[in-house]
């Protein structure tokens, strides 16, 4: 049960007006399908189920349903941390596509988040890439800037640019050209175990308001109960790390560059600013000083935190609404008394807004995935079947499937997805969805730079590890990371 006043929380949110404007302002012609300025859980509920869409009919206008062709397609698929519900939707999508386009020979390959970029880069070097690819939001700019991708905008598959989050469209643009279409956009939320809070002497129905509170609560939980307080994640080469540390960094007023501002220029490096160091210090305090987070945080991913949370050994973490379903899936696999223990944890699972920094700033990574078409010269065989590629892109980014494929964990890339009957059903079925949709206006996209994957997957986790292992002081680790970013941006070896 969520005890926070969600709509009010959004309105009270102290995120900068400029940032909000950046995310919700429509950049081009025409009105967006939903009024982003009214964004609140109540508004989302009011529009859910108000419009019907016929996906096959819409996509037939892009690629005729009897079109005969062949398509190779890679996508970031489900992984061990996803709920079974999502697995089923992925199966349903591909079955539906094959039924809708029976003459398109589809060769699809799913890859996990942490593997996709490496494999895709390798395939590109050998001109053996697939014709179309669905990449994490972090990857689009890198490949667009290198010239691997074809220009592709929503209008090319029958939609309008205004049908998608403006912030998400920035992540698929390079040098003013659009190279992809968002499939889903996600913001995470703060999750805690009310029973652990109660036993530790904390208010069970109140999330920590600030990151300083997270540090304090984590210590209190650890000291009183002997279990880990906050589910810190600091593994290198794992997407989970930046998704959990960047909100903290931004909330303290820091950043890698100025990506948290309305119009980022990415010119000034901020990783060594006092605010960024304060954020790093908070992690240091939890891991080193208080020892109140899992020791295994340096080698763990969020998928490792999930069983800890379910076992009642972890008090707080940041994750998707889908974690509730993941807990249910894991609980089904438990046996004996473990099953009851797991049920107690599930009953005590609470979702809230991610805490703010000292000056009231709240932030979360505006994540998600985008879908792209490759240039023929980088594709195996040297040919791209564009109608076939557009057919699958039209389907995946449709209001129906962009919602269904994000059913448990995220939000539809196509804003019309919020108007579908499936959204209404989802609001009833997926617990805590209100909280994560409430976090959307606080979302900050990763810097739209080709260097972003290295910064987020290697340099930022390295900074954390250097500080948390004592290999460097907090100041040294932040300065070292800032220098690495500087060298990277300067084209150093």
């Amino acid at each position, binding site marked *: 049960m969520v005890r926070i006043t969600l709509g009010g929380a959004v309105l009270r949110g102290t995120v900068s007006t400029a940032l909000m404007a950046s995310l919700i302002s429509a950049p081009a012609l025409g009105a967006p399908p939903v009024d982003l300025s009214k964004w609140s859980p109540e508004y989302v509920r009011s529009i859910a189920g108000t419009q019907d869409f016929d996906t096959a009919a819409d996509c037939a206008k892009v690629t005729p349903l009897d079109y005969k062709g062949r398509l190779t397609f890679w996508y970031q698929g489900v992984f061990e941390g996803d709920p079974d519900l999502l697995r089923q939707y992925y199966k349903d999508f591909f079955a539906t596509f094959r039924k809708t386009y029976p003459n398109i020979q589809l060769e699809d390959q799913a890859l996990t988040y942490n593997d996709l970029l490496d494999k895709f880069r390798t395939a590109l070097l050998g001109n053996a890439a697939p014709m179309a690819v669905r990449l994490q939001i972090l990857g689009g700019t890198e490949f667009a800037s*290198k010239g*691997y991708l074809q220009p592709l905008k929503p209008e090319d598959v029958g939609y309008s640019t205004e049908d998608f989050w403006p912030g998400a469209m920035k992540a698929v643009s390079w040098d003013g050209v659009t190279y992809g279409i968002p499939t889903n956009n996600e913001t995470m939320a703060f999750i805690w175990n009310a029973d652990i809070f109660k036993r530790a002497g904390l208010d069970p129905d109140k999330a920590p308001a600030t990151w300083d509170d997270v540090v304090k609560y984590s210590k209190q939980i650890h000291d009183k109960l002997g279990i880990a307080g906050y589910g810190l994640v600091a593994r*290198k080469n794992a997407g989970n790390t930046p998704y959990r540390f960047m909100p903290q960094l931004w909330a303290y007023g820091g950043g890698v560059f100025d990506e948290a501002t309305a119009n980022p220029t990415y010119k000034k490096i901020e990783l060594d600013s006092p605010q960024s160091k304060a954020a790093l210090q908070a992690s240091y305090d939890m891991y080193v000083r208080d020892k109140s987070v*899992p020791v*295994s945080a*340096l080698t763990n991913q969020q998928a490792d935190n999930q069983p800890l949370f379910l076992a009642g050994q972890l008090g707080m973490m940041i994750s998707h609404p889908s974690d509730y379903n993941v807990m249910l899936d894991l609980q089904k696999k438990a046996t004996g008394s473990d099953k009851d223990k797991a049920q107690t944890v599930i009953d005590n699972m609470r979702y809230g807004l991610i805490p703010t920094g000292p000056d009231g700033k709240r932030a979360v990574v505006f994540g998600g995935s985008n879908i792209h078409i490759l240039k023929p010269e980088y594709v195996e065989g040297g040919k791209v079947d564009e109608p076939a590629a557009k057919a699958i892109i039209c389907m995946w980014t449709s209001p129906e499937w962009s919602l269904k494929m994000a059913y448990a964990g995220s939000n539809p890339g196509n804003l019309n997805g919020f108007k579908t009957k499936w959204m209404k059903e989802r609001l009833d079925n997926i617990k805590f969805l209100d909280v994560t949709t409430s976090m959307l206006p606080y979302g900050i996209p990763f810097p739209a730079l080709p260097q972003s994957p290295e910064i987020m997957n290697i340099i930022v986790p390295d900074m954390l590890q250097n500080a948390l292992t004592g290999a*460097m002081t907090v100041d040294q680790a932040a300065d070292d990371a800032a220098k690495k970013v500087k060298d990277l941006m300067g*084209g150093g070896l």
Partner: protein
Amino acid sequence: MTIVSGKTEVRQRLQPGWSGMLRKIWDHRADYAYVVPAIAVMLIVIAYPIYYTIELSFFNTPPGLQLRDKIFVGFDNYTAILTSEVFWKVTWNTLVWTFVSTFFSFVLGFAAALALHRDFIGRGVLRAILIIPWVISAVAASYIWKWIYHSDFGIIGAILVEFGLADRPPNFIDSVGTVLPSLIVVNIWREFPFAMIMMMAGLQTVPDQLLRAAKVDGANAWQRFWHVTFPHLRNVSTVTILLLAVANFNSFIIPWIMTGGGPSNASHIWITHIYELAFGRQRWGVASAYSVLLFLILMTLGYFYVRALSGNERKDDSA
């Protein structure tokens, strides 16, 4: 063994130089025809990648550019590597990893081979059990050990805490001080069966009559081992150690899966570092320069390996 007729030998002596060599090739044309496909495959999958890696090592490949737009930088990549702190840290890790893993894998494997060389009940079962670490997938083993070592819920930690031997689970792989030794233990566990098999094979070649003669002459067990058994195993030991050393220099799976080279680069060895440079950071040029250096080291080891094998052959021939 090649049989050369007396007539051919005479013709070879009469036609020195190129024509003699061509004649020799012609005489053995069938042999060459058989090895041509293998050589062609080797040229494609080994020679070309080596050439391309050497070429790439002279270029800068910034992440914002395609590989074809690489920038020539001469020896800058080599200079950057040799002057970087990370290089020396990773090199030290690699040396520790390789030498400690090789030494203990060999010693344990040799000891196990000596123990299993005796005849006792259950020897076959024990031998099969000891081979298990070597035959199971390295990936599966890495994941299992990751959980055994888990800093919060690992089985070792749980046992120590349960028996009151520790207040909290020891930190095996999340500490810069303990991560490399912990990974080396896993590597030794996986590799010692290989040394055991090699040495068991070697032990079969020790002549029994020599051991019996030594015993008759009054040599004790240690003297029989040191003066009879060990000299017979010198070549197989050399080959085993070299193979282990090459395999350890090239190790990737255990450190990459268990720690990804972390925390704070404390378990990065050359191969994992090269992988991260190339595929994680897209520094293909620097990664190639690292690979060239590693190639040279491995070629040196390979030279000694071939020499050891040749030594064996010469010894066999003279026997």
